[in-house]
């Protein structure tokens, strides 16, 4: 029996109009009293359009290169279901705790709320779920008898290993450094990303059975030939060579790269910087190096050849550096390292003005002749970009413009090798590295199973892409269909389609940071807490507030509007499962429910 017929049979009034018939006036009682309900009257026949529930893709989901189902875990947070929120997040990523702290959160740019007041604090909420949820080790599928080597344990390698392992493949990570994590471990400083946080997340991979071999440099300590025992190899080796300044005196003692400085500090080595440190560059490495130097008791100046607007570093980071007392010398470029007995004494610089925009869209710096000036200093830290070193790669792998050449599935010119993260041409961020790790895992799995990557893509690309859903891939590869609570149409829910009558402007929750005074006190090198984490997580109350600001674009959250505003009492909340049933027999198709759905989770369709 269909749902519709069931409904009809439940109605005791369904044949009432047939039972009660009067042949003439004499049949009528003295006082006419109507006792029958009108439900027999199938007003559904008046209708030519019908409402239907369907979810769309919230823009944050696609705004995240890694396709995090942001809306879903925000909803779980607001329901106080932190463990499930974390689990949901970990369907797409092994490192929510890292991302909740250090991700540049492009998702917040695509948040529809940004067009209304200010975007939802997605990044802070991600940290919240990682702080408050209990980490569960994800399910690992039955062993497949295939094995994959992952070279490099940065976010790209970790993600690739994590997802492949979930599919049941045997995975071994080779990492040249002493400890896993790549830039997360040796680049991003402790005060932004605590080590134990990272270790905890990597621990999950170990518990899943991923083998991690540290201190092994592939190409040196083990050969590429050794890699042949694996069915596939993933290269997530990152970019680690600091670009040279190209000026004289650069080899002097007291000149060091930002990466090197960060790595030494992260390895617990003593670093002697002296009193005055000059950091050259305007990217994240420059800012991290400068703030680290501050914590080593130095007076720090950042020298950058353009202006603040052009700085590639994340704005929050620049602001934090300023607050901590880093001095910025803009529109200046180094011209010569002044040395004495091969030791840095000062840096000679020139002033610069900005000309027309170059290919990157930023205004080109032009040296002002004769504007030379000298800045005395004890250490010069260079942070003007990182390059990849490909000398270690196996022969024949195609490389172009400083990046390994890959196809859509991140397969290299050698079909047994895949590559992703900073080694390929893509934005150098954690979340892009994660997305690459996921994409490569899918590419590798398809190639191991002889499946078509294109067909997989068609099934798992979120709306306009390029973000992919691992949740959907895991079901797809087992030929399963995910039973969604509400059917999903794979399109983005645009701001204009929301019903703004139901939303009020509200203040964005401010993330708390350790106060500056306290920070400065912990800064001297002697202070035990000098690399204490600067940003504090949201409290539960703040998180609830932040989560409540989510519009839940395109997703039914059972707000009841459709039910309350139905003039025909034909929308019924389901008692035993999620959502509502529409009484097809009586719905007149007026469309009020669809218009009043705050979040465009309903539409009118032709029958």
């Amino acid at each position: 029996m269909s749902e519709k017929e069931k409904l009809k049979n439940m109605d005791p009034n369904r044949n009432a109009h047939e039972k009660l018939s009067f042949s003439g006036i004499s049949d009528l009682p003295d006082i006419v009293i109507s006792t029958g309900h009108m439900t027999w009257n199938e007003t559904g026949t008046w209708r030519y359009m019908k409402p239907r529930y369907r979810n769309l893709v919230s823009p944050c989901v696609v705004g995240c290169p890694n396709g995090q189902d942001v809306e879903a875990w925000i909803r779980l947070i607001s329901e106080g279901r932190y463990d499930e929120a974390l689990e949901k997040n970990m369907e797409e990523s092994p490192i929510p705790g890292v991302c909740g702290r250090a991700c540049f959160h492009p998702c917040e740019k695509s948040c529809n709320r940004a067009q209304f007041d200010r975007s939802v604090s997605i990044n802070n909420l991600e940290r919240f779920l990682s702080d408050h949820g209990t980490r569960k080790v994800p399910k690992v599928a039955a062993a497949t008898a295939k094995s994959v080597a992952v070279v490099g344990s940065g976010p790209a390698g970790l993600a690739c290993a994590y997802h492949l392992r979930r599919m049941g493949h045997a995975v071994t990570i080779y990492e040249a450094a002493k400890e896993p994590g790549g830039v997360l471990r040796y680049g991003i400083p402790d005060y932004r990303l605590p080590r134990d946080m990272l270790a905890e997340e990597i621990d999950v991979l170990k518990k899943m059975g991923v083998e991690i071999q540290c201190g092994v440099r592939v190409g040196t300590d083990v050969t590429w030939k050794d890699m042949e025992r694996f069915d596939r190899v993933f290269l997530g080796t990152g970019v680690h060579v600091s670009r040279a300044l190209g000026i004289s005196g650069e080899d002097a003692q007291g000149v060091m790269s930002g990466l090197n400085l960060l790595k030494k500090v992260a390895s617990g080595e003593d670093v002697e910087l002296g009193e005055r440190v000059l950091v050259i560059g305007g990217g994240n490495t420059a800012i991290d190096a400068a703030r680290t130097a501050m914590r080593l008791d130095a007076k720090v100046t950042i020298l950058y050849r353009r202006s603040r607007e052009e700085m590639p570093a994340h704005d929050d980071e620049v602001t934090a550096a300023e607050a901590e007392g880093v001095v910025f010398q803009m529109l200046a470029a180094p011209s010569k390292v002044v040395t004495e007995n091969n030791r840095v004494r000062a840096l000679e610089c020139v002033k610069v003005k900005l000309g027309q925009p170059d290919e990157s869209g930023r205004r080109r710096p032009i040296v002002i002749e004769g504007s030379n000036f000298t800045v005395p200093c004890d250490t010069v830290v260079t942070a003007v970009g990182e390059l990849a070193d490909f000398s270690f790669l196996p022969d024949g792998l195609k490389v172009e413009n400083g990046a390994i050449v890959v196809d859509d599935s991140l397969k290299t010119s050698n079909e047994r090798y895949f590559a992703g993260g900073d080694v390929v041409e893509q934005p150098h961020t954690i979340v892009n590295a994660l997305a690459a790790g996921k994409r490569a895992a899918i590419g590798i799995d398809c190639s191991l199973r002889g499946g078509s990557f294109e067909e997989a893509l068609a099934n798992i690309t979120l709306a306009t892409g390029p973000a992919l859903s691992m949740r959907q891939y895991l079901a797809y590869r087992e030929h399963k269909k995910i039973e969604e609570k509400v059917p999903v149409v794979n399109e983005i829910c645009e701001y204009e389609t929301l019903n703004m009558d139901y939303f009020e402007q509200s203040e964005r929750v401010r993330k708390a940071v350790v106060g500056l005074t306290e920070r400065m006190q912990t800064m001297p090198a002697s202070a035990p807490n000098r690399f204490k984490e600067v940003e504090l997580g949201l409290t539960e109350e703040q998180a609830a507030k932040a989560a409540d600001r989510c519009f839940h674009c395109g997703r039914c959250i059972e707000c009841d509007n459709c039910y309350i505003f139905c003039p025909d009492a034909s929308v019924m909340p389901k008692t035993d499962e999620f959502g509502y049933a529409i009484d097809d027999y009586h719905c007149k198709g007026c469309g009020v429910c669809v218009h009043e759905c705050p979040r465009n989770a309903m539409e009118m369709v032709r029958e």
Partner: protein
Amino acid sequence: MKAVSEFSKSKRLIKDFKEREIMGPGHLACQGCGATLNMRYLLKEAGPNTVMVIPACCWTIIDGQFPFNTLGVPVMHTAFETAASAASGVRAALDRQGKEDTNVIAFAGDGGTFDIGLQALSGAAERNENIIYCCYDNEAYMNTGIQRSSATPELAWTTTTPEGHPKQGKKKDIIQILAAHGIPYAATLNAAFPEDFLKKVRTALSMKGTRFLHMISACPPGWKIDSSMSIKAMRMATESKAFPLYEVYDGVKYHITHESKGTPVKDYLKMQGRFRHLTAENVDFIQRRLDYQWEQLLHRGQLEPFNG
């Protein structure tokens, strides 16, 4: 302990709405009928121990033909002008039977209230009959084909005020008339604001004497709007101050229950075919009139009640 999120509390707009559904589907209202929502909300609060008195109006039809009744409570259909007097009679009969706790509710259109039923209503109000009188106001005689009533807004089109001869003069201020009787409770209600709506019904139910509830009722065919827009139109009526939400206790104590957003009335008029002919000057005039009336209401709200 986990902090309770505001969200989980407020997710369902009105928590126990579904447990108390009395009005059933299958009724004969047009698609998107606002009057139907008014009845549905009203009955949810009033409950089954209610007698409904309905004079000639759309709701005579909506309810269904003999021997059917979509309401699930006894209904007395009565003549156009008699809602208040018939309700008074039902009340007296019930009281005589000792059924003093049964609610007697008259449910009439604007024609049956502002125009032809006004003297019966005034009589009942003056006697302070123990009834609730609801006027669902769709701003014309809709059942007979959109004729003008004294509730029709200024300059609106109806079949008796066709283009070129739009309705002259402002909408009658029915709440003022009822307040002048000094009845315990008079209020304006809007189904687009369900929480406020239900609260006012509850307030009325908790009192004795004549209680008057004035409910705006979007009418898609009469207002010339798409059926899906009826909640939107009603919401705009309040947000643009065309239908402010307030209550009056004992005829003197005013209380505004929703601060209008001050949406330009232009937006409210523009969405309705019945105002299609308005010129910019017309709209401006209506806006000024509404602004004035809103000020008037604010002033009334500030007056201290008479304290003999």
